[in-house]
């Protein structure tokens, strides 16, 4: 290129007379556009139906509008209050006005529900007062205190003031077993309420354990398949692919059938007199159940990448090492194993990433000691104690963890290298 530039003064022209460079650039831009237009529908779809909902979930985990929306006058009156003494009359007056509106619109209960989370009993106090307040007149502070002396409780007012902020870290703190006192101080929650941190840990170590067991089980059979003639290897592969293609619920119910106290394994052990009627093993509805069932379910995700890597390693490498005098184990460890690391890495990250988000299997076979953080997210989305915002905060933390691992995976292996079957 450089040598021709000096010789030819006029730029090379394409067939239609435009300079070649320009034509090339234009056609490349056209191709880029064409490529992008092919991708655009799905990209747009994923952004709207997946990314936006997730973003709005993250927003929900910090958004805290109850007090500001449902006690608006109190919220602004409290801004003047220094938090040192029982609030002055204007605050009570504002509260009375908000309550009258709130009873009318039936929204007062939502603000009360928010406060009751932190101060048990605050709900019914607020509701009782709210029902009576339209018959009162100034000075309100006296009437409030007459009705219930707990209206003098500074803790309540400080909390209310804190809750007037629209953005709150409270749910993230809760999700990590910290609390946010009415004074804005952050401290660990009382031990009896702590749960999430240990659940995050449990999710992590159990997923690691499951990944580890998967390695131990996947490595030998992948190696066996990789060293067999294609026909036999394909047959063996079917034994891996059949579970892979079988419904998760089917596989989980199979494990319930096998492991429960009246299940196949226990019946067999009793029939063989290995254990007696009373000594039936508890292998399910606890950690063991989760580990066994999840290992079974995730094992193919370890086997498939491992096998596809091992398939490409010529057996002659190992023979060469051995013929050069290496001990078989040494030969395997120094020559064969390093070559399988890419497949191992892909399998590990895949299994781990899938494991930490598992919900269905722990819910069905995990009892209470074998549940994962996902189950607590679900628990906070259902039931009468549902805290959707806490669920959103927990989900966001889990999501961040998963995305970090995904990012590492993408750097190390590349998502487009994922293959199934």
């Amino acid at each position, binding site marked *: 290129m450089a040598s021709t530039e000096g010789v030819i003064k006029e730029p090379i022209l394409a067939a239609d007379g435009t300079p070649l460079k320009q034509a090339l650039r234009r056609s490349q831009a056209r191709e880029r556009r064409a*490529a992008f237009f092919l991708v655009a529908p*799905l990209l747009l779809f994923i952004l709207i139906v997946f990314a936006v909902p*997730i973003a709005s979930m993250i927003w929900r985990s910090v958004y805290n509008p109850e007090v500001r929306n449902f006690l608006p006058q109190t919220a602004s009156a409290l801004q003047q209050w220094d938090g040192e003494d029982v609030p002055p009359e204007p605050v009570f007056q504002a509260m009375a006005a908000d309550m009258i509106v709130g009873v009318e619109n039936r929204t007062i209960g939502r603000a009360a529900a928010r406060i009751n989370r932190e101060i048990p009993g605050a709900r019914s106090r607020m509701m009782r007062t709210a029902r009576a307040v339209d018959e009162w007149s100034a000075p309100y502070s006296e009437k409030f205190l007459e009705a219930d002396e707990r209206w003098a409780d500074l803790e309540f007012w400080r909390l209310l003031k804190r809750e007037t902020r629209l953005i709150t870290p409270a749910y993230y703190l809760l999700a990590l077993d910290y609390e946010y006192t009415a004074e804005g101080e952050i401290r660990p929650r009382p031990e009896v309420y702590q749960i999430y941190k240990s659940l995050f840990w449990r999710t992590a170590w159990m997923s690691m354990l499951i990944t580890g067991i998967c390695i131990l089980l996947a490595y030998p059979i992948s190696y066996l398949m990789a060293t067999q003639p294609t026909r036999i290897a394909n047959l063996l592969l079917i034994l891996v692919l059949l579970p892979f293609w079988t419904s998760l619920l089917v596989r989980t119910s199979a494990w319930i059938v096998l492991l429960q106290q009246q299940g196949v394994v226990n019946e067999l052990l009793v029939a063989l007199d290995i254990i007696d009627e009373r000594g039936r093993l508890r292998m399910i509805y606890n950690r063991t159940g989760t580990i066994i069932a999840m290992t079974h379910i995730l094992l193919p995700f370890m086997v498939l990448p491992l096998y596809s890597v091992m398939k490409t390693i010529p057996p002659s490498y190992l023979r060469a090492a051995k013929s050069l005098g290496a001990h078989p184990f040494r030969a395997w460890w120094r020559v064969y194993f390093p070559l399988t690391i890419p497949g191992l890495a892909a399998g590990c990250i895949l299994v781990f990433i899938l494991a930490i988000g598992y919900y269905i299997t722990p819910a069905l076979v995990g009892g209470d000691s074998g549940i994962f953080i996902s189950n607590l997210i679900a628990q906070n989305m259902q039931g009468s104690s549902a805290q959707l915002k806490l669920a959103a905060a927990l989900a966001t933390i889990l999501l961040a963890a998963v995305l970090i691992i995904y990012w590492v995976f993408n750097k190390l292996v590349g998502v487009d290298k994922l293959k199934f079957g």
Partner: protein
Amino acid sequence: MAVPSYATPAERIWYYAFRVICGLIFFFLIAPIIVIVPLAFNAQPYFTFTREMLALDPEGYSLRWYRALLGSSEWMGSIRNSFIISVSTTIIATALGTLAALGLNRRNMPARGIITAILISPMIVPLIITAAALFSFFARAGLANTFPGIILSHVVLGTPFVVLTVTASLAGFDETLIRASQSLGANQSRTFFKVILPLLLPGVIAGALFAFVTSLDEVVIVNFMAGPAQTPMTVRMFSGLREEISPTILALASLLVALSIILLTTLELIRRRNERLRGMSPG
């Protein structure tokens, strides 16, 4: 591959021990799936082999759970719902995913890495998170408790598989074929249907099957999103497994195992055809 004649005794022991270990692992993989099939023929409402069954006494076996399954309008209705959802999901996901994979595979695709990562991400994000996010979002849009809502969320889950499998089948694609076709006078659509599509088809079908199975098997999102009119079989199975576990569930489970065998065979046939087509394997 038998033990070579020069192997030491230790190597021989290891050789057989290794095979036994592998056999046990394969047994672990396959036994749970096999075991439920005979149990679904149990004449008793138990989840275990009765003495009659072990003695192979025909009295011990019956079709009552299959009859219970096929005769229940609730189960059949939910199976129908499941198929409505998965078939619609498959069609949409396959179309969107294939187009995207074609684009991603173009040489000039801008920002390929990041876009691929975004398109694949629904596969990586834990289902409960997707469920939490989509449920509130769709409820606001009035799509919760509707078929379109469920189908859209399943399309999200299904497309990554289509993108991956189609991309994989394009990876070995020889672009000179396109130019050859064009230089022989074929126009764009003819090139697409006669050259690109046949080579693409195995990937597309595999992706479609993945999307289908993903949707058919999905339970977390539908558990939140489905109303009584959309309840698919997975939700019924899930609550059945938690509450009263009856062999009816095993009958359905056996049918699902049969379905996965069919799907697996289809895929295998496609793979063989594909290898033949590309001249990668002699048979």
